[in-house]
């Protein structure tokens, strides 16, 4: 059975950049992703802040990055990793799709993040059938209908601006006040048929067979409770790291992100991490790419030391 030098879990910008640096360091490399290359970039319609490319569609940038790895001969496979075993100088990865283990000297975990959920009553019932986390994907079905957005950060406000342009009414309910860039907040507040409820706690998603509304309560002294009827809900309340299966490795910080040093090393020899899944201040494509390069460089040096 083949032993890879570096297996990279996650084919977003961090993983794909790690792959490029790894293969150029003459490592045997395998990149795995459970869905498709690109990570969060796939859901981004317009990227304007990736150096050198001006304005580009997220999926297009994803494919450009992916094709770059393919031109260099990086091996790629569609796999969902369910378990990682640390065997010292090797690691064994098990996947959902088949029983064949993947053996490697090092792993770079670049699994990214997933949108947070509220865990409020009714949320699970209406997930995918009334509650969505992607306005670009699902917003069209709510043209001329009533929509509610939960969240007040940059993503919530930007997607609300998009939704307000197509819906009959838009209600924004947020835990604090709107915390997005002031210019975007002003733009949203000025749009017709937009109502913002700050300092609220979501109590329940209501309805029968279909979602009918959202019940929420003010966190201020008045504690006023409201029930807003809506046809659809979009949640933009932050991101959670995709690290559920890494807990046993003791590499996570208090918030569940992967703790790494300056070389993107975790506390386990041979396990590295890069991109949004790591503890960091700024989660952007450029910083993910940088992480990937640093992690691959460190992993390659470690592999060379094993072989010396």
């Amino acid at each position: 059975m083949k032993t890879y030098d570096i297996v990279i879990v996650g084919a977003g910008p961090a993983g794909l950049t790690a792959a490029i640096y790894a293969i150029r360091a003459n490592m045997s490399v395998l990149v795995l992703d459970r869905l498709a290359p690109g990570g969060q970039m796939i859901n981004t319609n317009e990227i304007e802040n990736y150096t050198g490319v001006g304005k580009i569609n997220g999926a297009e940038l994803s494919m450009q990055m992916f094709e770059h790895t393919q031109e260099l001969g990086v091996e790629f496979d569609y796999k969902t990793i369910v378990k990682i075993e640390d065997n010292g100088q090797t690691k064994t990865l098990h996947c959902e799709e088949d029983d064949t283990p993947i053996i490697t000297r090092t792993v770079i975990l670049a699994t990214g993040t997933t949108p947070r959920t509220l865990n409020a009553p009714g949320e699970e019932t209406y997930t995918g059938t009334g509650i969505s986390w992607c306005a670009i994907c699902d917003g069209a079905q709510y043209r001329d209908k009533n929509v509610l957005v939960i969240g007040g950060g940059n993503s919530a406000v930007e997607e609300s601006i998009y939704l307000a342009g197509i819906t009959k009414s838009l209600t924004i309910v947020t835990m604090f006040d709107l915390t997005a860039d002031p210019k975007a907040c002003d733009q949203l507040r000025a749009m017709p048929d937009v109502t913002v409820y700050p300092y609220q706690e979501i109590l329940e998603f209501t309805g029968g067979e279909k979602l009918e509304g959202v019940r929420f309560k003010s966190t201020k002294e008045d504690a006023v409770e409201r029930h807003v009827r809506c046809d659809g809900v979009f949640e933009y309340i932050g991101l959670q790291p995709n690290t559920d299966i890494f807990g046993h490795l003791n590499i996570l910080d208090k918030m569940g992100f992967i703790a790494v040093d300056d070389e993107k090393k975790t506390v386990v020899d041979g396990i590295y991490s890069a991109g949004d899944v790591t503890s960091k201040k700024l989660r952007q494509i450029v910083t993910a790419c940088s992480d990937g390069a640093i992690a691959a460089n460190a992993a390659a040096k470690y592999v060379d030391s094993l072989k010396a």
Partner: protein
Amino acid sequence: MIQELNTEAYDGMEKSGPMMVEFYSKKCGPCKMLSFVLKAIDKLNPDFKIFTIDFDENQELKERLGVTGFPTMLLMNDGEETNRLKGLQQKPAIIKAIEDIM
């Protein structure tokens, strides 16, 4: 074979044999990624018919076929729907769904 259709072309065409009808939107990132995946699948199996339909510009057809989001892939045999994949899927999963109707 991948071909773009509108409602008139879809209604007018002969629907014999296995095929895929994929609803997409130009604004949708996962749709764009899926288009790359479908092109790769088309290279592996150029005889399988894949028809793409713009969700935003074919409202009546998407309602008639019960399509509410994008991307949505309808797998059909002789004009009858046999399977439906909603959202971006792994390439092997799409290939398997196609093989199941071939």
